[in-house]
């Protein structure tokens, strides 16, 4: 009576509440009262998708329109997929519990490359032809946003529109136009052509690619008179007036993050050279502390959550951070609200703050050191020194903490054995710092958890031309670190090397990879970001079957004049700036952050944010 799926099926799968909707603050509309039906698709499991701030914002943003019903769809977990296929039940939206096959839009958010097979699988489960060429007027338009949309070429054969930038900017115009075209009886193709006039939208069908003998791109040319040669992303310039929801969907089962999520700013001033987010979200645009406080008040009231999280790329860089933190503490002090403060710089103020809002016993301190030596940290422009880390740890140990987490990367450009061993040495120095405390003041044993991810060169970063290590290299390097660690207080873990290699392939992939993704999907791959479901053998087979090579995409250094598959897209950062940054990286020279000194990256052209702040 309420559900697309019969009770008998729901009772046989893990966590049936994933599939029935009706969460607190869910938007209810009568589907027949709206002009546009929009399926917001998150290509991962419910608990992951529901913890994503972008979903929460866009959901309420689109639903504030009376003519549009935005409903959610998540990737059914493998147990449910099996049941749905067996019973022939098509993928449906949580809100109306209706099949999405005839919706107007299916909008995917692409947060990580390893979710691509889930995109394909969701199309298939919905009964929608995967390849764009096979779809008709009856099928929804497939639109993809999120950080991976900036180079969505591997999905080019499946997707109609890649949305480059922030959802608040264009969706209203796009939906108005869609409604108008629909009323006038125009075709979807006509609609797509009309969209060519907008910045921020990339539609692969309007571009043709030719290749050289060696597999590199020979030419990438528009095939429609209105198609732009360079498509620039779109961003919000005033964060205080931009839409922010007063409500948040509150799940009825435990999800990854059960909390109110506040956005302080978009972008990051730091310019760490490996970090794609640091470039594609430029420039930094802040909210005022009072705006954030107002957001917090409303969300706490309407959600009933007991935790607030401040999420932005480097929280301590928020200009009014102290004011905001004190304001939040003041506002919620009697309500047992805990504050989660990811990516904080460790100093006296932040430790005091953490003591007030978190249980010292349980929490651990986190340092994103990223590399084991100062030289390599300079290469990647990671502005944290060994002294910063050691002094931070000292302060924290004095304050009663004894758990430290360190994040590193393996395989950064120019990395040597010394850099790798540096990971071990730095971790051990922290342990030694702990032992400087008199014995009677050390109630518990210290633990240092050092975890390493494998470096994946990403588009739009200074390392977009660099070769990625092979997974064999990563494995070997991880062992060098491991062997160098002598102290038992240090625990070292590292990310799945083969998965990182596949990420490397897709991150800088071109549209020939659509065939690869299709083949991988055909072989049964789903949820590739889940290490227990990731099946490297199938990926290897798909490479073999499609004649593509891992080496070409992941492990090859590109020259500056090679046409890259994402060169027709602009995130506002000039290529010349990236080249300059890469050269500086190779010379281990650092670049000041946007507040110290503008380096003229190009993002000032958006007309807002840090680039136009008055320097005091």
């Amino acid at each position, binding site marked *: 009576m309420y559900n697309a799926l019969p009770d008998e099926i729901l009772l046989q799968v893990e966590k*049936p509440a994933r599939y*029935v909707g*009706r969460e607190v603050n869910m938007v209810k509309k009568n589907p027949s009262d709206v002009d546009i039906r929009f399926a917001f698709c998150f290509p991962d499991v419910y608990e992951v998708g529901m913890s994503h701030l972008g979903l929460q914002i866009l959901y309420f943003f689109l639903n504030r329109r009376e003519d549009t019903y935005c409903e959610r769809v998540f990737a059914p977990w493998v147990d449910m997929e099996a049941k749905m296929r067996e019973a022939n039940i098509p993928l449906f939206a949580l809100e109306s519990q209706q099949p999405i096959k005839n919706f107007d839009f299916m909008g995917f958010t692409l947060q990580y490359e390893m979710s691509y097979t889930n995109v394909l699988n969701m199309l298939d489960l919905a009964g929608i032809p995967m390849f764009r060429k096979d779809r008709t007027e009856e099928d929804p338009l497939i639109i993809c946003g999120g950080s991976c949309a900036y180079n969505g070429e591997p999905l080019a054969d499946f997707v109609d529109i890649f949305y480059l930038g922030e959802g608040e900017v264009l969706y209203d115009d796009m939906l108005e136009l869609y409604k108008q075209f629909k009323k006038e009886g125009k075709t979807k193709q006509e609609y797509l052509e009309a969209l060519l006039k907008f910045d921020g939208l990339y539609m692969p069908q309007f571009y043709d690619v030719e290749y050289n003998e060696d597999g590199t791109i020979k030419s990438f040319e528009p095939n429609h008179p209105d198609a732009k040669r360079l498509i620039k992303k779109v961003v919000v310039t005033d964060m205080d007036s931009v839409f922010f929801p007063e409500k948040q969907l509150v799940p*009825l089962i435990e999800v990854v993050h059960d909390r109110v999520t506040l956005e302080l700013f978009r972008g990051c001033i730091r310019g760490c050279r490996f970090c794609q987010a640091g470039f594609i979200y430029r420039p930094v645009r802040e909210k005022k502390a009072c705006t954030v406080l107002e957001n917090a008040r409303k969300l706490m009231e309407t959600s009933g959550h007991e935790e607030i999280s401040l999420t932005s790329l480097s929280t301590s860089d928020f200009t009014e951070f102290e004011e905001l933190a004190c304001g939040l503490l003041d506002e919620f002090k009697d309500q047992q609200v805990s504050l989660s403060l990811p990516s904080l710089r460790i100093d006296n103020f932040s430790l005091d703050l953490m003591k007030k809002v978190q249980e010292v*016993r349980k929490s651990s301190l986190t340092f994103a050191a990223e590399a084991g030596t100062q030289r390599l940290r300079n290469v990647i422009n990671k502005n944290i020194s060994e002294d910063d880390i050691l002094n931070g740890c000292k302060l924290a140990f004095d304050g009663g903490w004894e758990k430290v987490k360190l994040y590193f990367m393996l395989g950064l450009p120019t990395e040597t054995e010394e850099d790798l061993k540096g990971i071990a040495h730095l971790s051990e120095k922290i342990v030694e710092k702990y032992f400087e405390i008199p014995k009677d003041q050390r109630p518990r044993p210290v633990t240092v958890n050092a975890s390493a991810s494998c470096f994946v060169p990403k588009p739009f970063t200074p390392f977009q031309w660099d070769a990625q290590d092979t997974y064999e290299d990563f494995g070997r390097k991880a062992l060098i670190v491991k062997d160098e660690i002598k102290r038992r207080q240090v625990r070292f873990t590292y990310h799945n090397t083969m998965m990182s290699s596949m990420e490397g392939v897709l991150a800088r992939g071109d549209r020939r990879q659509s065939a690869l993704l299709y083949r991988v999907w055909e072989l049964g791959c789903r949820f590739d970001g889940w290490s227990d479901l990731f099946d490297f053998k199938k990926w290897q087979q798909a490479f073999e079957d499609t004649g593509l090579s891992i080496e070409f995409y992941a492990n090859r250094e590109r020259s500056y004049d090679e046409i890259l598959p994402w060169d027709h897209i602009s995130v506002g950062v000039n290529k010349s700036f990236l080249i300059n940054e890469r050269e500086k990286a190779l010379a281990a020279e650092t670049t000041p952050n946007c507040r110290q000194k503008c380096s003229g990256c190009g993002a000032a052209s958006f007309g807002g944010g840090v680039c136009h702040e008055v320097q005091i």
Partner: protein
Amino acid sequence: MKYRFKLYKGDEIKFIGHLDLLVAFQRVLKRAGMPIAYSQGFNPHQLVAFASPLSLGLTSTAEYGDFTLKEDLDAEFVMEKMNEHMPDGLKITSLVKLADGVKNTMSSLERAEYELYFDNTVTPEDIKANLENFMERKEILTMKKTKKGINETDIRPDIFWAKDISTEDAAAVEIQVSSGSIRNLKGETFAEAFCNHMGKEYNKYAIKCVRTEMLMKKGEDEFVPLNYGVER
């Protein structure tokens, strides 16, 4: 002030388990702006406790529990406010201020009543033909999951009565069984034993089970709902 609630849990929300229900209920108190009382200690939590967990998939017209507020607010008002903020499928149907010295729901609970609706492999005639002689049995051995593992247990002493409530086209029974921390029999376990008795397949996912009452002892041998005579 302590309050005792009686809560309805409907089809809309039957797919959440016991812990999730507790959290959802706590969030209702927050959204309703109630002056919630917290426990002392390292990790303060809201003072809310349910009488007994309800298995995922079951609905109920009578879940009971207690919660504490820092202020003495009118019960009618609290109930109304909370119901405004309930997720679909949850509704407080009665709320009373608790008199001093009343034992909490969890330790008071002794019996519960269920309605079991069978799928169409069982007919009303099957019930008619079997229920009486099932109840006449001296011993009903079933495999029961306990803390120590799966054991063969006699559940007959836990069944106090069973009524045929079938309609013309649907087979159903209503039962009263032990419930609580000392002796406990789930409605589903009864259904399975009864199906075995009838020689029918127990179709676990198709039988609908509703908890309809939770009872405590009053005097020598009278059993009353958990919110009976507890009002301040």
